């Protein structure tokens, strides 16, 4: 027999993952790594939603997280397409070098 993991653990995990993702988006310079950080943020939301769903005793949160997974897949498809087009024309994915437009 093992003791049940308390709800707060899941929420803290979700919050930490979300923060790691957000910090990753702000500090990393490679477009693909930023994309991965955004995925991390979305999955942090999923964990939080499922934990709350368990706490509230209804399924809305779990249904919502399924929607988020589906949308994240679509977003990844579009995002990677944009990355490929950009790489073909610029030969770089460093967002500091993607700076044709300023002021």
């Amino acid at each position, binding site marked *: 027999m093992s003791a049940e993991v308390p709800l707060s653990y899941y*929420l803290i995990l*979700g919050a930490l993952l*979300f923060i790691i*993702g*957000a910090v990753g*988006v702000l500090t990393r310079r490679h*477009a693909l790594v*930023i*994309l991965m950080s*955004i995925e991390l*943020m*979305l999955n*942090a*939301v999923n964990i*939080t*939603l499922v934990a*709350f*769903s368990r*706490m*509230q*005793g*209804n399924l*809305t*949160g779990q*249904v*919502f997280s399924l*929607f*988020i997974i589906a*949308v994240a897949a*679509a*977003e990844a498809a*579009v*995002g990677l*397409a*944009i*990355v490929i*087009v*950009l790489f073909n*024309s*610029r030969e770089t994915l460093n*967002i500091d070098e*993607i*700076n*044709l*437009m300023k*002021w």
Partner: protein
Amino acid sequence: MNFVLPEIDLGAIAPQLWLTATAILVLMVQAFVPLVTSRSLALLSIIGSLLSLVATLGLWGQEAVLFSGMIALDTFSLFFNVVFLLGAILTVLISVEYLEREQIAHGEYFALVLFATVGMMIMAAGVDLIAIFIGLEILSLSLYVLAGFMRQVLRSNESAMKYFLLGAFATGFFLYGIALLYGATGSTNLDRIFLIAGERGGWGNVLVMGGMGLLLVGFGFKVASVPFHMWTPDVYEGAPTPISAFMSTAAKAGAFAAFVRVFLYSLPGLAASWAPLLAGMAVLSMVVGTLLALVQRRNIKRLLAYSSIVHVGYLLLGLLSGGTEGGASVLFYLLAYTFMQVGAFAVVVYLGGQGEDDLSLARFSGVAVRHPVAALAFSLFLLSLAGIPPTAGFVGKFYIFSAAIQAGHIGLAVVGVLTSVVSLYYYLGVIVFMYMRDPVDLPERRPSAALVTALALAVAGTVEMGLFPGSLLDLAQQSVASLLGS
């Protein structure tokens, strides 16, 4: 386990269905009919939009909540449908010539514009955060692709990349906010959140406050208000010009529709907490947008992007004022803004020339000599954006500022009036270039019939809403009243 099939009433979402069907039809025709021209696809898109408009008007006056409390049918969402469809039709009209000139005339373009419009409609009609999220994503994903539609053009690629990364980042905040609100209230339904959010204290309240703040960040990104505006000028500059027009009018209206519904309808009990934040965003948008627009000489699209940030400030001021008056002023202004902003971009499309290498103000030198009608129309739109009577922009600003004063936000209204006085400087700057400088060589071209139609529609709308605003303002007030139940 009991499984209850939700009640399905397809008639209530007929506007969305017409558009979806048309978009799929456009894709199919493009794929299977050889040698179909982009003009006929544009015509098909406009016919679909008009059918959707007819369906919208046919539903007018009905009130219902459908699909297990996901989608609301009310005058509020129908009013916004009209704004979106108008934006979409004008965008398609100004796109025809642009697509042929830039050699990107593919049918997917029109299908994506229609899909984005469907997303906006779902956002405006959603009464559950799930529906609002899905609508937002349909809108955003279509716009990411449209922003990068000119695949061979570096600026367009860069615009799509920036828009995608920041948009997806904002979506993350938006979703985490929803998750926290769900944790506090146990529901994603706006009615339930309204009931529970106001009365929770302690731990629950931390969740509600955090959720509300994160939603504010998400919406702030989507409507491009300061301090979440960094992407706007770059994206508007790099995207195809008609898409810049579409993003700054219809897409912004979609985000505002959900913004108004969530904050005025679902979270009014927390107004004491969000009002100061919103006031800060409004003031910053008006002031920072104005300052940045003042120094922008290099690119007219960037100038219009900065000016759109200022206009978001005004709209936030209307939202902040709240109640029927404030909400109605937002709706009215969004409609007026659609006419004048798309009109201004239509002139940019006309005068741009292939590749749009040079869109500096100097390019507009002496336009009045060679293209007197275009110069006159452009002047009208710019004066309307500045808020000079008797144009739609003046009436819209007048309603927003008077709603703000009634709600007691006198200091904010003063900031608004001051920034619109200063904004005259940069709008008039363009007009001075057009009328008082020696003409430069612009390629002699005849505008297409579609572009002329779009310009005529935009001029008519701008003047009509400026001279006879009464009936439309009544409509806007009814729409907000149907939402707030007062």
